[in-house]
């Protein structure tokens, strides 16, 4: 369908509110943390993104990918309970040196956020780090995006039109509260309302 292809081309290059590229300091610190361990294991639970797979596959020994966004989307579309998706993250305790959560917490209700946090805390090694993002309430679209890492940690937000997920618009203090089992390490304001957080397991 010519129209949809053209539309896709247009969407891939959106630069309006919520889509501007930015330089990610959180991802830079996170990648440096991973590079310190040559046998490092990373879990990415964000939307599947080949650029990110290539980026991290060079930095860790094993790169685990488990797209929880698409799993959540399928559950919601079928009207099935969301809680069953957490079975997908049943990895042994202390499995990973880093977890990329992206903005998943902003797509879940409070109950499932707590499940997510418990799971992440369990499967992260002590000293391991998690990256979380919140878009805040400044963005003009609730469309789901992937965070595509480019050269020198430039991040481009790419729309994921196949995903239709609610956006909760959590704030700074909500994230700090929900991530209470972790030590907050760093946070960065990318633009008003949009923040990156690095949390560390003790």
């Amino acid at each position, binding site marked *: 369908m010519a129209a949809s292809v053209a539309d896709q081309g247009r969407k891939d290059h959106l630069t309006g509110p919520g889509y*501007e*590229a*930015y*330089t*990610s*300091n*959180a991802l*830079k610190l996170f*990648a*440096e943390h991973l*590079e310190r361990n040559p046998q490092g294991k990373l879990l990415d639970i964000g*939307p*599947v*993104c*080949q650029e990110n*797979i*290539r980026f991290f*596959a*060079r*930095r860790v*020994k*094993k*790169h*685990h*990918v*488990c*797209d929880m966004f*698409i799993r959540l989307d399928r559950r919601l579309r079928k009207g099935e309970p969301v809680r069953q998706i957490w079975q*997908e993250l049943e990895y042994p305790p202390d499995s990973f040196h880093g977890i990329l959560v992206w903005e998943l917490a902003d797509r879940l209700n409070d109950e499932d956020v707590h499940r997510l946090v418990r799971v992440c805390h369990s499967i992260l090694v002590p000293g391991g780090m998690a990256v979380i993002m919140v878009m*805040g309430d400044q963005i003009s679209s609730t469309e789901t995006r*992937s965070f595509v890492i480019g*050269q*020198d*940690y*430039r991040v481009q937000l*790419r729309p*994921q039109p*196949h995903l239709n997920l609610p956006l909760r618009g959590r*704030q*700074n*203090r909500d994230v*700090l509260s929900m991530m209470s089992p972790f*030590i*907050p*390490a*760093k*946070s*960065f*304001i*990318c*633009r*008003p*309302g949009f*923040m*990156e*957080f690095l949390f560390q397991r003790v």
Partner: protein
Amino acid sequence: MLKKYKKVNPEPQVAAAPVASAAKIDRTIIGDQIFIEGIIRGKEDLLIEGSVKGSIEMKANHLTVGSKGQVDAEVNAANVTIGGKLVGNVNATGKVEITKAADFNGEIKAKSISVEDGAYLKAVIELEREPIKKFAQPEKPPEKPGEKAPSVPAKESSMLAGMDNKRV
């Protein structure tokens, strides 16, 4: 008889195959009404639209799991394209391509990988590791007069441990 191979000729049914880029290549197809259990070894490219359980050894050739394909197998191939369902470990000396129609669960070892947005994936990925370009000072092209830098790096808000709960 459990096994049935069709030699492909460039006929209309091939054109309807889901992975269009490979449609003109001479290869073997396992059709969507075929179920095979066991070991497949071969020296020519293979498209699976049926069901295969076991292992697939074709170290010099290209394996494609088509949109109707359901494979539960250990795979050794030169290149692999996954456009259907594949459960198992994939070892490719070349490239693994995963389309948005793919449903993959397993491990991938490959030289390189491409993945379309929307693929349903639960995978462990090990790629041939190349030297990492350090995050050093980027080579800045000379700025033209009046040209604006693309954007300002994100601002560090604070060490969170001592952060108050002010909204930002």
